[in-house]
């Protein structure tokens, strides 16, 4: 068994000091050590996107990131985004458009969509599709998810006028 490695990490604004096994990836750490079950594990090899979290403000694959790599970093999970209300419009659009059924992909989908809205505020429908191509949904067929994200793009543009 490898030695435990001490890390300091801020998750959803709260500082934590923990010791982790080097082999533990970020989402296992979030779920098992911190009890934050909103980030999901589907494939665990970077294909499905259910594990998407923010590391220092950028979305990453939580299953392809070691917990030790988050040492000194800021992590945001769906719990943090929900609590602060920064994606309330996006969550409401997902409900209104029926953009989820089982909900397994939804936290990752929302994390990805949040970065899209911030990075490409004038994104086209095709750009939305490209952007969320890294997040699998096996229920909706994606149309409703793309509709919901496009709704929020438009709402935020109109709010700027």
């Amino acid at each position: 068994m490898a030695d435990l490695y001490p890390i300091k990490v801020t998750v959803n604004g709260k500082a934590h000091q923990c010791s982790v096994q080097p082999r533990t990836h970020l989402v296992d750490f979030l779920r098992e050590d911190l009890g934050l079950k909103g980030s999901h594990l589907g494939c665990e090899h970077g294909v499905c996107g259910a594990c998407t979290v923010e590391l220092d403000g950028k979305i990453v694959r939580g299953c392809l990131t070691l917990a030790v790599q988050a040492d000194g970093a800021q992590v945001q999970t769906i719990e943090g985004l929900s609590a602060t209300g920064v994606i309330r419009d996006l969550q409401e659009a997902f409900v209104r458009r029926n953009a989820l059924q089982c909900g397994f992909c939804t936290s990752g989908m929302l994390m990805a969509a949040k970065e899209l809205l911030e990075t490409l505020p004038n994104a086209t429908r095709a750009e939305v599709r490209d952007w969320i191509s890294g997040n699998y949904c096996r229920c909706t067929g994606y149309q409703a998810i793309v509709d919901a994200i496009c709704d929020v793009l438009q709402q935020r543009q109109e709010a700027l006028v």
Partner: protein
Amino acid sequence: MKAASFDYVKPKTIGQVIGLLQEHGDDARLLAGGQTLMATLNMRLSEPQWVIDITGIESLRGVRVQGDALRIGALVTHTEIEFSDLVAQHAPLLKAAAPHIAHRAIRNSGTWGGSIAYADPAAEWPTCLLASGGTVIAQGPKGERRIAADDFFTGLYSTALQPDELLIACELPLGRPDHWFGFSELARRHGDYAIVGMAATARRDGSALRGLRIGLLGLDATPLRARQTEALLEGRALNAGLVAEAVACLRQEVDPLPDLTNAPDTKRHLIGVLLQRMLPLSAHV
């Protein structure tokens, strides 16, 4: 699945990394963005005793112009390349290719140096490096060494790097005002591995291209140059007849390996389609 147990070390200097590589040899793996290594660890295709995290070494970061070259540090991420003004200005081929690499969350983590050193023959950066005529800068116990892209990719996932060397950066020639580039690839779904792909750079000369370098991905154990097709096109005025000639030449020149779903003849056909799409009918375009 979960990775097997390993020890983790995060050195602060390149010298420490080289020392660790000398000490642990093949029992150690370097961790940069981790977008390949972590997947292989989780699937237990790779079970190193040591993971050496090089992300704490600041000198491996950053894109800058140095002399007549664009220097891209090993730890520069795919997203940084995609949105870098310096890259857009001096190496626009990379900006065009970046969106084809996987998905946003992976591009935020994955690194230029990791992609070049891993040398996946279906990946974008090795082929772009080859098409750009770039240079790999490696550091080992005896200091720095420069390796031309043409000499770097030696076999499947194999490079000219020695076991105790670290890729620290690459240099690409600065695109001049007459710079032309092309990039084209075919994938079943955005972000998937390409079935076949192509990157090229050249200088425009009237309606012709000169100094053309065409890199091919997804055809063989390494990224390839299409040297016969490059020679055929060199300096000749581009028109529909010449493009058709070049497509025929390329299909005859390559000897594609099949993948799970595509036979060699399919890939031979598709690479010709890509060349036809990529070549401007007039180099002024």
